[in-house]
């Protein structure tokens, strides 16, 4: 962990404070673009749920809300450990920071593992959209094609979310390795933490929309 006065100042900046606040602003702008990116998906979801409420509820009930809830708890905890890592970085205690970063990575991997099992179950039940999709409706209002649309959106939304988590986990590994080589700045930890919280908040919206619709 670098101490305050040895933070590497890039040539385009006048001082460390300017560099820090600029980098934080850059991260916030990036998160705005992420919100807009997912916005298109949420709009698509809302429209089709509005058009096919019964099918979406029936499709949603095929998801395991228990595993989803466990994953929500895991991810929320990982946001806590990420926040504690940022706190440790601000206090310049490199060891504590690496511990919390490691904990965040473990929780992130746990989330992805559970998600992987869920995907596997969906695969076995023939819920992967495309040629192999099999679904027999129990009520007349439920159309297999609309259920397939739900699962298409489910896999895109959770898939893109999982991709963001993988990026975050890789970023945490880079932070740890940078910290061991003593080339890490506090701002980098903060920015990565912001990103991780964003991925977490995204899940807060995905979870009820996808898992809980069928359980009212």
């Amino acid at each position: 962990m670098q101490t305050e006065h040895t933070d590497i100042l890039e040539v385009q900046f006048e001082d460390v404070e300017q560099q820090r606040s600029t980098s934080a602003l850059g991260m916030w702008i990036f998160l705005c673009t992420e919100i807009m990116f997912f916005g298109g998906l949420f709009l698509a979801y809302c429209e089709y749920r509005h058009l096919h409420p019964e099918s979406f509820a029936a499709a949603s009930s095929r998801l395991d809300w228990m595993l989803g809830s466990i994953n929500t708890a895991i991810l929320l905890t990982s946001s806590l450990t990420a926040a504690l890592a940022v706190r440790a970085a601000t206090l310049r205690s490199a060891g504590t920071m690496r511990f919390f970063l490691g904990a965040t990575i473990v929780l992130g991997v746990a989330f992805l593992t559970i998600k992987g099992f869920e995907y596997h179950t969906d695969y076995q039940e023939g819920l992967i959209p495309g040629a192999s999709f099999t679904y027999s409706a129990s009520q007349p209002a439920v159309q297999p094609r609309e259920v397939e649309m739900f699962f298409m959106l489910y896999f895109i939304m959770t898939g893109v979310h999982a991709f963001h988590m993988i990026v975050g986990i890789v970023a945490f590994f880079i932070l740890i390795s940078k910290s061991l080589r003593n080339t890490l700045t506090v701002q980098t930890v903060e920015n990565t933490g912001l990103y991780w919280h964003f991925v977490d908040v995204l899940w807060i919206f995905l979870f009820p929309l996808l898992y809980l619709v069928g359980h009212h």
Partner: protein
Amino acid sequence: MNVSTQPLPVVTEPRHAPPNYLNDGYSVRSWLLTLDHKRIAILYMISITLFFFIGGAAAVLFRVHLLTPTGALFDPGTYNKLFTIHGVVMVFFFLIPSIPAVMGNFLVPLMIGAKDLAFPRLNLASWYVYMAGGTLTGYAAIAGGIDTGWTFYTPYSTMFSNTNVIAAATGVFITGFSSILTGLNFIATIHKMRAPGLTWFRLPLFIWAMYATSVIMVLGTPVLAMTVSLLGIERIFHVGIFDPALGGDPLLFQHLFWFYSHPAVYIMILPSMGVVSEIIPCFARKRPFGYKFIAMASVAIAMLGFFVWGHHMFVSGQSMYGGVVFSFLSFFVAIPSAVKVFNWTATLHKGSISLQTPMLYALGFIGLFTFGGLTGLFLACLGVDIHVTGTYFIVAHFHYIMVGGAVMGYLGAIHFWWPKMTGRVYSEFWGRISAAIIFVGFNLTFFPQFILGYLGMPRRYYAYPPEFQVLNVMSTAGASILGLGFLLPLIYLLWSLKYGKRAGPNYWKATGLEWTTQSPPETENFETTPEVVSEPYAYEFMELGNAD
């Protein structure tokens, strides 16, 4: 009295220019791995020029085809591919990056007194991302082409087209990220890296325009990325997202697409407005009339631009009430646009005007943009739009905005800042000639298209009834003149690099921090960070401009 004349000492130009960003390393590596915003601007300039001429060549080909009512050259499929490649290349690979990625990259740090953009590595990455997207789309065009039109409308693009839609859409998806990175960089830079004393209302109007443009890039482009991703997924997996036969909604595609692509029009035009706001005061030797109104109008256009996309869908089957609201909001955007036009013309009033090349382009911009804007109001009227939608009227309208507006602004910017970027002066004679040729060629190409559209000729057809031939021949003749007009600057600007005379730091006697540096600027831009103590555009304190 007889004064013996002493022979003046022979003054030669120094053989080597003082250290600047151009002679700071000559290797390929020093260009391809540069983090200098000025060099990245040059990389962008070379690339977008290439794409501009590819897109232009496609346009010339299909204009020649349209010389005869039955079509002179191509089969219908090839014709469709030509206009698609023209649209895709011009919109995504020329117009959107043009002024922001070239002039914005070069000027934003110089105008605000910074050493570079906030994130130089992201800036270089944006160029590579752009080139990757461009290469992929270029591949799609060569390996079979695409025939969907630049709008990629579903379900044709996802279910029926047998062409390279995936490759082209992926190219557009990738290139979008270069826009996002550029916009992000500009916003962070303008917020955080202004020189001491450079308050928001002391910023050059070009910076205000770049800021507004960046907001659109950052908020709009991600939506396009998601839209083309969904398009690709539907095309690959044949699961209904947009295809009504599979339970999807094609209107959702149009909503998502135009949510980006309408604001994208403002990505193209706002930077040109910024350029004109710089050129007019300089060549009228006056402060811009209503500085704050011009600045705020840029912001207003960026904001309002996000709420008018539905006017592309008046005949799509969207709700009637939606149409009424979108029509009303579209009229609203005309207000800040008109504010700008009034302010520019008021700036000209009682100015000491000189008509050098950049000024010719700026004046051309005002006229042609006004034309394009007013016909836009016709199209915003629900009743009128129903008659001219999908005709050449709309083709003429948006070319008045995109060529008459955006390209004129780009060329004006290139000529205005060429002495700063290269340290050389281009030939004013050829500059004026080609500006005139472009103006004439442009109007001859596109004015007949207003009439064609009004008479009912639909766009995107490879053949037409014989009574439309005269106007089509006029349009093709105009396109040839326009093509020549675009080639001329390429020649004399390149010529000036070697043979043009040296420009000096402030060739136009213009205000603005970029003119306080040497030409071309040194790699670090400023020897010491400048301090700003006064309002911009203090032309009353500047001597008259360069008068040759």
